[in-house]
């Protein structure tokens, strides 16, 4: 190493890594020794999602394609850009569309953040599919990780629902008609939708328990058309409920992959 490099290294070793501040934050020296490389993973909340050491095949990109990590990464990007969008958005038909127009035209970086959020959402759907595909192709869903695969399936469903509920929020033609097409299917839910098989059997004579103002679609939309209550419901689901559930299940998902162990050839 050059003389300058030696000087820099000496300065870091003696003045930075030994300093009170560095030690208070990281609690160990720079991770260039085996001991410190282990400690950095064990003592850091974010890094300790990993084990300290992994078998060689699991580190390779051609084994994992990084898809699981990228799914989480996309979730974080969507959370950050989503919080930004929430500052400028009001979930009522009077304001929603105007707020998006204003976001696009008046807010600094508004259009960029909206684009990041939308393309990030599409990307997350794709990345989650491909993560699932690779977990299948490497047989990683088999024992002892069966339960974690099931959690993953629920997370897939939540990813689709998050994307779907977000689709309504701009309150433009694209939004309400895509959601109208999607939620129309709920009419036909067996027993629970008013146009579903079996629904007319619940009740007595003219008294029907399940009708167009009491079925599951009505509960989902808060009305019989995609209107103001649907917008509010989808907003709350999109910004609060679904991310909380997804976050909780992600914690379980990550915990379990550490406890069940990363898939490896025996």
């Amino acid at each position: 190493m050059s003389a300058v490099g030696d000087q820099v290294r000496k300065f870091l070793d003696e003045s930075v890594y030994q300093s009170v501040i560095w030690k208070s934050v990281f609690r160990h020296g720079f991770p260039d020794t085996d001991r410190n490389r282990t400690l950095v993973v064990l003592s850091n909340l974010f890094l300790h999602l990993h084990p300290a050491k992994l078998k060689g095949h699991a580190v390779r990109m051609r084994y994992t394609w990084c898809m699981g990590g990228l799914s989480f990464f996309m979730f974080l990007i969507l959370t950050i850009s989503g919080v930004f969008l929430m500052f400028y958005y009001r979930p009522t038909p009077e304001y929603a569309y105007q707020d998006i127009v204003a976001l696009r035209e008046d807010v600094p970086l508004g259009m960029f953040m909206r684009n990041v959020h939308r393309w990030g959402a599409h990307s997350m759907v794709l990345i989650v599919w491909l993560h699932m595909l690779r977990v299948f192709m490497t047989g990683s869903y088999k024992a002892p990780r069966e339960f974690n695969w099931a959690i993953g399936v629920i997370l897939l469903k939540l990813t689709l629902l998050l994307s779907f509920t977000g689709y309504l929020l701009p309150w433009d033609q694209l939004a309400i008609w895509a959601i109208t097409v999607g939620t129309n299917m709920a009419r036909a839910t067996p027993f629970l939708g008013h146009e579903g098989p079996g629904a007319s059997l619940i009740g007595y004579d003219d008294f029907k328990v399940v009708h167009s103002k009491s079925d599951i679609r009505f509960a989902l939309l808060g009305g019989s058309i995609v209107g103001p209550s649907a917008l509010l419901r989808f907003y709350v689901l999109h910004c609060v409920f679904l991310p909380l559930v997804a976050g909780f299940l992600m914690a379980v998902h990550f915990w379990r992959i550490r406890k069940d162990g990363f898939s490896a050839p025996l």
Partner: protein
Amino acid sequence: MILASGAIGTGPEYMQPFFNFVNFICRPEILFTGSVAAFFGALKFRKILVKPPVAIAMTVGLIAFILISLLSPQFYNEARKPDNAPIFIMVFLTGLVLWAAFYQAVNNDERFRQGLRSDEHEAAEEKLHVWPYLIYIEAIVAAFVLALLFAWSIGLEAPLEQFANPAKSPNPAKAPWYFLGLQEMLVYYDPWIAGVVLPGMILSGLIVLPYCDPNPKGVGYYTFEQRRLAITVFLFGFLILWVLLIFVGTFLRGPNWNFFGLYEPWDAHKLLSLNNINLSEYFWSDLLHKAPPQEWWRREWPGFALIFAYFTILPAAGTVLFKRFYQKLGFVRYSMVVMHLLVMFSLPIKMYLRWSINLKYIVFIPDYFFNI
């Protein structure tokens, strides 16, 4: 050359023979049958297809096909919709990921034949520190993906159409791209099956998959030959019944959800003779030459019998025909596997019945919204 009655033309004159040919092979029955044949062909000839020159040639061919397709005003119109961008990314990314998986699978299967261990097994001998060996990969990949996402967000604006108007429905009204496979299923099944039962069965099928796969091999490395059945079924569902249907729903379904060739201008006034016929009409009118009975339980018994047979006689026959498979799984797991497979294959079966004999419903009880 006949110009379409729609607002947009059919593209340059010299492309018409090619466009007409592609429009023809995009007809659902030809496209679906061809894709299924290509799927099994690709599995059969995987050793040739994974060779890098072949894979690169196929990628170049696909890019050339898309570029040529842009000469068609219809395809150009759909391709430039910002929300359809993920479809193109999906095609290339899924292709890349599958190529990488099969490249390693073919390699490992060859190693097993030579009595060697899998490539992953060799690599697993060594234990590596996560810092720096994994952290650096993750950091670089995350930075790369973030850069791509930023570039995409700078280059392409998210769509914002007119203010929502419940009185003015667009034609066609489409679900978001990732649900277009489900919307395409609505052509063949009523919403209670296409929108509720089939998606539910997809999720339940995925959840029970690890509990019903009795094959202990193939954990932690890529292989095809040790897991032929599982991989074939899974990829058939993903590629043919999900990805292909998304493509059909995006590019081949126009106004009134009518079918259009890839380059055929979307004409809202396109008339199709839809004389789809219920199974009961076939049975009573064409076979017995009688008027169908009025009561549904008498009229629909052939359909009920058929569906009952499909879900009982086929599984029962399977216990004899695939005796070892049945014994390995046991009754409960066997039933779950077979029920999910039968529901899965009920989709292509109904598709072919529609295309061949214009079958509308196997069971038709509109009073109870119970149509299959």
